[in-house]
């Protein structure tokens, strides 16, 4: 072997060694495996009933393709091989199976009104075309009701529940994932939830709450030394206390914490970099947004969205949004007081809960 050949070999080997890391790149360039645009559209979080709508469409498709001679009351498999049972009520043998530790591994399609005794576990979706009332301590993967749905105390829903009518949720239940209704969701005490959506979401216990006397409004002007006008909002440096029964006009941004005194009324929106505390009977017409926590006392009314980056704790008898002006309540952690009403959407990314009802 001549010196030249040896040199060329070493050169080639070095070049190959250096180019080795580029091999995956060249391969991907010549034979692309990943050239579709990032799928970005359609991950819309606002539609809480999305899964329920998808399930309804799926079920409709599957039932449509069942053999034409399939009786209304039937047990078998859907065209995609999912085991199912359909009929006005569940056969006793399947109810027994649902009460065993493993639960019922069958999609349930109920065509008649039904009531469960409780303690069952349903490992697949459950659809009820008529009224349906679950018993206590029942576990569902997902439930879709074409009329009203009642979930007994201690119920666990693992993925989603949707009712076209009212959705009543018993005490101590867990609604993991999404729960929605086209009308009203009525929550018992100590119900845990992630995402709720309905025309009206009501925490039980409101009937027993007293009304507050009407406040005597007093105009309030923020001291000039701590406030300046920026566009259409007033910016306050430091903390702010809006006194009892006072009325303040315009949007407010506070760099510290803010307390809206009892009976005070903010005709605008409120943002604070620190905590927001809304006193008894306080009212904010617009949105309430905090970079930390929001805490409200009894009978507070908020017109717009309520957003906190850490926690929201609403006291008893609070109202968020209105029937024809729905709103959103969003925070990692949310606690709803008894008798609280939210018109619209609640999102608690780390979990929400309702307060315990009085004995």
């Amino acid at each position, binding site marked *: 072997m001549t010196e030249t050949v040896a040199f060329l070999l070493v050169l080639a080997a070095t070049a190959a060694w250096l180019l080795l890391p580029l091999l995956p790149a060249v391969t991907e360039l010549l034979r692309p*495996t990943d050239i*579709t*645009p990032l799928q970005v*559209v359609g991950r*819309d979080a606002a539609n809480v009933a999305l899964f329920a709508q998808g399930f309804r469409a799926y079920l409709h498709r599957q039932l449509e393709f069942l053999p034409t001679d399939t009786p209304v009351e039937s047990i078998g498999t859907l065209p995609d091989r999912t085991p199912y049972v359909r009929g006005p009520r569940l056969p006793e043998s399947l109810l027994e199976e649902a009460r065993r530790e493993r639960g019922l591994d069958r999609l349930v399609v109920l065509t008649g009104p039904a009531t469960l005794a409780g303690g069952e576990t349903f490992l697949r979706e459950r659809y009820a075309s008529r009224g349906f009332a679950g018993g206590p301590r029942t576990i569902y993967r997902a439930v879709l009701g074409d009329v009203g749905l009642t979930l007994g105390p201690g119920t666990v829903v693992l993925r989603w529940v949707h009712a076209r009518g009212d959705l009543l949720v018993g005490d101590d239940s867990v609604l993991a994932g999404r729960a929605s209704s086209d009308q009203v969701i009525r929550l018992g005490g100590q119900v845990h939830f992630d995402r709720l*959506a309905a025309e009206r979401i009501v925490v039980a216990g409101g009937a027993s709450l007293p009304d507050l006397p009407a406040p005597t409004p007093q105009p309030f002007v923020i001291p000039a030394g701590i406030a300046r006008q920026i566009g259409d909002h007033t910016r306050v*440096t430091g903390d702010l206390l809006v006194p009892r029964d006072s009325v303040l006009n315009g949007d407010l941004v506070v760099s510290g914490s803010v307390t809206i005194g009892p009976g005070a009324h903010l005709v605008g929106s409120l943002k604070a970099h620190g905590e927001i505390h809304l006193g008894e009977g306080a009212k904010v017409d617009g*949105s309430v947004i905090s970079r930390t926590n929001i805490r409200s006392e009894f009978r507070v009314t908020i017109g717009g969205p309520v957003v906190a980056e850490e926690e929201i704790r609403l006291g008893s008898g609070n109202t968020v949004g209105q029937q024809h002006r729905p709103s*959103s309540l969003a925070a990692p952690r949310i606690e709803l007081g008894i008798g609280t009403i939210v018109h619209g*959407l609640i999102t608690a990314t780390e979990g929400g809960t309702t307060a315990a009802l009085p004995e």
Partner: protein
Amino acid sequence: MIAALLVGTLATIVAVILTYTIRHYTFTINRLVGHHRQPYVDIGVADWPEVTVLVPAHNEERVIGGMLDALLDQDYPADRLTIVPINDRSTDATATIVDAYAERHPGRIVPHHRTNGVGGKAAALRDAAPRFGGLVHLVFDADYLPGRGLVRQLVAPFLDPEVGAVMGRVVPHNISRSLLTRLLDLERSGGYQVDQQARMNLRLVPQYGGTVGGVRRTAVEAVGGWSDDTLAEDTDMTYRLLLAGWEVVYQNRSECYEEVPENWPTRIRQIMRWTQGHNQALWRHWWPLFKRPGHLRRGLVFDGLLLLGVFAVGPLLLLGWGVAIALFFMGVIPLHGFLALLGITAYGTLGNFAAFFEVATAARLDGTFGRIRLLPFLAFGFLVSLMSVSRATLAQLFLPRPRQPREWDKTERYRGGNGSSPADGAKRVQR
């Protein structure tokens, strides 16, 4: 004396580059392990305010129809959404297309035709925006394809009274066209998924990017309206709002498809335009920002200054290379010893690849693992950017400025021609 001057220059440049390297890693690590901050994304229901969507368009006959269709398909209340295509002296069929849409959708599409005045997107916005009301003015480029919920998502943060501007995420849809489009897809991922979102997480300065975003109308009015003497009205607006006390918000979930350049000359022109616009903003705003108005935190000001200077890093790096070579031939070795060797090796291992690490992290977060194999090719993109940015900066510094009114320096469009079809785009939007 000269050697000492050169060593001082090199040390300064090294300090600046190291600062940017640390910044890259801070952002990347934040995205890997930090809290993902998106406070407004769950405002899905609200009493939605009136919105005007401005679509500046100059010779956009290939894409404007797709854009208007996508806007008409929004799930935003139709009675609160006004769509304003701003036809800025187009010489193709843009005006005809826009007028035909307006005729079919009276009241919903309200075209604004410009026939004179200063040209360019900034001037078009400055001219049209004051004529339209609404709480929010959203701005889209004509080649974008917004999904059904995008307007609602972009408007939600404005329910916070402090928010002056909102920026969504731009996602290329013509990525299969060439190596360049695939590299730009990676770059965009790094820029939005990591850079912008980290700045949002850390409460620094997310940048309003002029499209897939919007501004609060009253905020823009309060800071004097859109500037028509800048090539980067978006960066300019970001800093004017920031200095005046408004917050700029980035929302990673508000994603929208765009067309990226499919050939290098178009890309180079785009970079040079961005460079000159960004440098204008640097020149205008660094001192007011450096003085730190009382409402701005130190960290935010620091990040704001680094963001302003981001296009100055390229020429600075070239200068650093030149100085280092000069010092070498002068026989001056500024650093000695084991620690220096360790430092240089560490930088060679980690520092050089800070931006690459960022892109890789973005791909991981997006779950797009195949395309990350192209990462080594980003070095070519980096070199092209470095030269283009430096050339644009030098031209800005040393060449006389043109006196004639600014004109549109448009990015070439491909859809409907040799690129993906609008139908493809619309299908993706529907999916």
